[in-house]
């Protein structure tokens, strides 16, 4: 979230799209209801299903799964052509005025520079002046300025075209557009709440970019009650991501590439240069963050002479790809020997379960640390536990994978910090001990790591230096205290041995160590900031600066400088997170230099441009979001039928293409959570299972009537990957949509069951495709094709 849960109460309009917070984040949704009740905010819900969120909305628009970019593109078109955008904000705070090089364009589904399987992005670049700064036209009239190019790009996205693609009516779209663009007024703000309904598409990042564009046009970024807000689905998915538990180092520092053979080369490639004369370009500090991380990782072994141990970090091949789809495909091809899983369940939550099962059976060994036995831990027994779903699976005797299932502690048995969607780091206490022989994860990790190191020290082996030089100097090396780890993460001044107060104190000369620069400030000499319980709310906006600690720098609203005008005064006097008092910024931690007068720097200090990007040349399939169809679609793209799906869609299909056609699989399937359950966990508890004990398939009433399916009848849902069975829940809440003139039905599949639990049911990922977003590597769990039959 750019803003936070409590801030949602400040909104005048709430666009809920690609998410269903009333069901999946009910407690977060209380702030939506508060905005509705106290501020008379309008809630606009855009969703293929009439959900519990839709039930309390002021405007509900059903759209076909995967057509959100068309809808948002329509909003951009509507805003720009009806003069419903905040012009002053757009000029001051976005790259609308930046000029783009000659030759940029879009035609027949491709942007300029398309070369069979990739883009040559040379025509997507800013036109630079002699100093290397971008040229601008503040009148927004230049035909090659971003604003004009954007206007031209979305000219095709008329209300009628939106309706044709999305399946709603033009009137429904216009009603929503009118409500949403109320926020274009300087003193109004609107928020966007989204979740996996946006990220689970093969154009996910473009979709979120489209939302950011809408919010920038409305002047909503940085505003209280504004922002683009991801409602994250796991307690610490934010922290895990911040900590680099994917293709990153901690603090969003990139993992080095093989060609970056020295620290200097790495820093040269990864430290951006300012694109405006006054741009603060905060990432210019990358050398300080990286050097401090290396000092935290390699301790005294990290010295200037050895590049602070940079050489010991693993390097990715320049075109290497280690995203989910890539390495499970490698596993499926038998290229991997082992998998270590801490609290994840790929058989249940990865796309295409059949592929997951086969992939795991090719491993030599697998280690799983869990609270409960999971489908993944018991994958070798799938044929027995779910014979009907996996008739072709290997039997246990045929599977040679050795499996270690480790009993791990759960949240109440460990301390440490979770980071919520609002970026608040909240510390928790140990309430009790793990049951039986279950062990705290820090002890499992430490003992395994130290045992491996012992073997290398004793017997030698490959890569000893990177392994043995990783610092592990904890007071209790076999079970490090998480408080000690948290202090390492915060960072320390190695000359004074005092905790640093924040990343502003980090240095690139090896005199500071910091495990994650974005968390610097979370545990200072003043103690653990994450366990603070202060109730003060000086701005009156629900920012609670002394409750826990928020990254970065305890800032509660990102880009908050943009909530104030050119004089540093709030666009809305009644909602002021930040005010320039003539000497300093007052309020929230400024996303700006605290003592820099309003005009001295542009507002978006993290970006080299100094302003936000309407035009984003760093994305792989285009600088503007364009509607592409999902990998499987009931229609060809109404905008450009010959380039229907994302031209850079990733598939990783060592199991064969496995994509279906509309003639065989005519219905659009969507997958989702229910409020009653949490992911694949609560099927282990009776209390949640009581609320919804059974898997079901939601079927539109009109389709059910066509097929003679009554409520409760058993149905079979099949895709090109597999099939499942369950009872039908027949409902009018899944409306029949008219797409390109043809009737389109959705089939709804709640995700929470599997073959291990107090209650069991089919895994919906039996059906989902191995199709991925090229920017993020996220699988397309929503908007794929299925068939539906009644089982007689």
């Amino acid at each position, binding site marked *: 979230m750019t803003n936070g*849960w*409590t801030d949602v109460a400040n909104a005048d309009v709430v666009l809920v799209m690609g998410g269903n917070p009333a069901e999946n984040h009910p*407690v977060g949704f*209380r702030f939506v209801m508060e905005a509705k009740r106290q501020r008379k905010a309008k809630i606009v819900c855009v969703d293929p299903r009439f959900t519990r969120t839709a039930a309390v909305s002021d405007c509900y628009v059903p759209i076909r799964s995967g057509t959100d970019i068309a809808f948002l593109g329509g909003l951009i078109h509507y805003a720009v052509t009806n003069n419903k955008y905040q012009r002053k904000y757009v000029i001051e705070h976005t790259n609308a005025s930046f000029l783009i090089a000659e030759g940029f364009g879009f035609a027949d589904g491709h942007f300029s520079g398309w070369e069979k399987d990739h883009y040559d992005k040379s025509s997507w670049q800013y036109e630079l002046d002699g100093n290397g700064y971008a040229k601008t036209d503040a009148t927004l009239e230049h035909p090659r300025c971003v604003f004009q190019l954007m206007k031209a790009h979305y000219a095709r996205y008329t209300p009628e075209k939106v309706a044709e693609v999305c399946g709603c009516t033009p009137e429904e779209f216009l009603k929503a557009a009118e409500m949403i663009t109320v926020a274009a007024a300087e003193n109004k703000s609107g928020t966007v709440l989204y979740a996996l309904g946006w990220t689970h598409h093969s154009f996910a990042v473009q979709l979120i970019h489209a939302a950011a564009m809408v919010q920038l046009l409305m002047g909503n970024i940085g505003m209280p009650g504004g922002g683009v807000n991801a409602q994250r*689905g*796991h*307690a*610490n998915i*934010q*922290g*895990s991501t911040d*900590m*680099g*538990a994917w293709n990153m180092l901690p603090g969003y520092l990139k993992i080095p590439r093989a060609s970056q053979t020295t620290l200097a080369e790495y820093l040269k490639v990864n430290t951006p240069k300012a694109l405006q004369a006054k741009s603060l370009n905060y990432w210019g500090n990358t050398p300080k963050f990286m050097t401090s991380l290396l000092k935290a990782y390699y301790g005294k072994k990290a010295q200037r002479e050895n590049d602070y141990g940079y050489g010991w970090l693993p*390097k*990715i091949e320049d075109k290497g790809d280690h*995203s989910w789809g890539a*390495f499970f495909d490698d596993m499926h091809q038998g290229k991997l*020997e*082992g*998998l270590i*899983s*801490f609290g*994840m369940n790929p058989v249940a*939550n*990865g796309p295409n379960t059949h592929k997951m099962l086969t992939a795991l059976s090719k491993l*030599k*060994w697998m280690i799983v640390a869990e609270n409960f036995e999971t489908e993944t*831990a018991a994958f070798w027994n799938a044929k027995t536990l779910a014979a009907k779903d996996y008739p072709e699976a290997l039997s246990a*005797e045929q599977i040679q994978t050795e499996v*270690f*299932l480790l*009993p791990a502690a*759960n*949240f*109440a048995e460990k301390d*440490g*910090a*979770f980071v919520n969607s*609002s970026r608040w780091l909240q510390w928790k206490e140990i*309430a*009790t*001990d793990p*049951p039986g022989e*279950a062990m705290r*994860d*820090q002890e499992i990790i430490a*003992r*395994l790591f130290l*045992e*491996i190191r012992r*073997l290398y020290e004793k017997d030698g082996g490959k890569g000893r230096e*990177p392994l043995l030089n*990783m610092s592990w100097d904890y007071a209790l090396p076999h079970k490090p205290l*998480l408080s000690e*780890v*948290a202090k390492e993460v915060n960072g320390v001044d190695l000359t004074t041995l005092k905790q640093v107060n924040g990343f502003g104190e980090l240095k690139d000369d090896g005199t500071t160590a910091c495990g994650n620069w974005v968390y610097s400030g979370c545990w200072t000499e003043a103690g653990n900031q994450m366990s603070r319980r202060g*109730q003060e709310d000086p701005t009156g906006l629900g920012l609670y600066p002394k409750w826990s600690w928020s990254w970065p720098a305890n800032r509660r609203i990102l880009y908050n400088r943009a909530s104030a005008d050119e004089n540093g005064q709030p666009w809305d006097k009644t909602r002021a997170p930040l005010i320039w008092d003539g000497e300093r910024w007052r309020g929230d931690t400024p996303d700006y230099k605290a003592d820099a007068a309003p005009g001295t720097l542009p507002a978006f200090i993290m970006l080299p441009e100094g302003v936000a990007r309407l035009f984003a040349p760093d994305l792989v399939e285009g600088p503007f979001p364009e509607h592409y169809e999902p990998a499987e679609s009931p229609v060809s793209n109404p905008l450009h039928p010959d380039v229907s799906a994302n031209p850079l869609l990733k598939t990783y299909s060592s199991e064969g293409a496995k994509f279906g056609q509309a003639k065989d699989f005519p219905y659009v399937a969507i997958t989702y959570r229910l409020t009653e359950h949490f992911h694949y966990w*609560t099927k282990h508890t009776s*209390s949640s299972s009581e609320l919804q004990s059974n898997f079901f398939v939601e079927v539109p009433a009109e389709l059910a009537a066509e097929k003679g399916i009554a409520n409760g009848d058993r149905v079979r849902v099949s895709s090109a990957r597999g099939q499942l069975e369950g009872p039908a829940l027949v409902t009018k809440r899944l409306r029949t949509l008219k797409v390109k003139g043809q009737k389109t039905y959705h089939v709804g599949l709640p995700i929470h069951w599997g073959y291990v639990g107090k209650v069991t049911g089919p895994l919906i990922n039996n059906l989902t495709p191995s199709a991925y977003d090229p920017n993020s590597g996220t699988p397309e769990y929503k908007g794929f094709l299925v068939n539906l039959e009644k089982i007689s």
Partner: protein
Amino acid sequence: MSKNSSRRDFITRSAATGASTAATLTGAPAENASAAHIAPLKTANTTKYTSICPYCAVGCSVNIHTLGDKARNVRSAIVHIEGDPESPINRGTLCPKGASLEEFVQSDRRLTKVRYRAPGAREWTDLSWEEAFGKMAARIKASRDAGFEEKDAEGRTVNRLENVAMIGGCTDTNEINYLLGKFRFGLGILAYENQSRL
């Protein structure tokens, strides 16, 4: 039989203690003699710990009420988990998943021993932690010795291990994620995913 009925039937008149403290908001049932049937509060005499709900990322604070003082021979038991009213996020409220946390923590399905499945086996067997650490470290070392690349085809130092993958972290704290990061980069593992893209 409902657990409730037995509890409420068993403990009856002792409840007057609770009732006599009747508070402002709730209309003082002690005014009425019949309040004697009221059961004692199950969180009486518990210790309260502050925690955060492990489910979604709204970040609701919870109070965990435990019995037992953590003395040497005491393993504290969780009696009840409820929303923390001090949190500006949830102000004491919880969703249906959060409201069921007590059962989740103390579930009879929790794993309490290391389980091991040998190649080709049809069943789990138990393993001690010592055996498990020994075997796991040996497997990891064998795969690493087979797959570790100090230099790539062009002779550049890459120090990477591509035949082992890791997943997870999203369910655990920052500090665990940081330790997993050191574990991973120490071994040279590049293939690593959490739930953020799923």
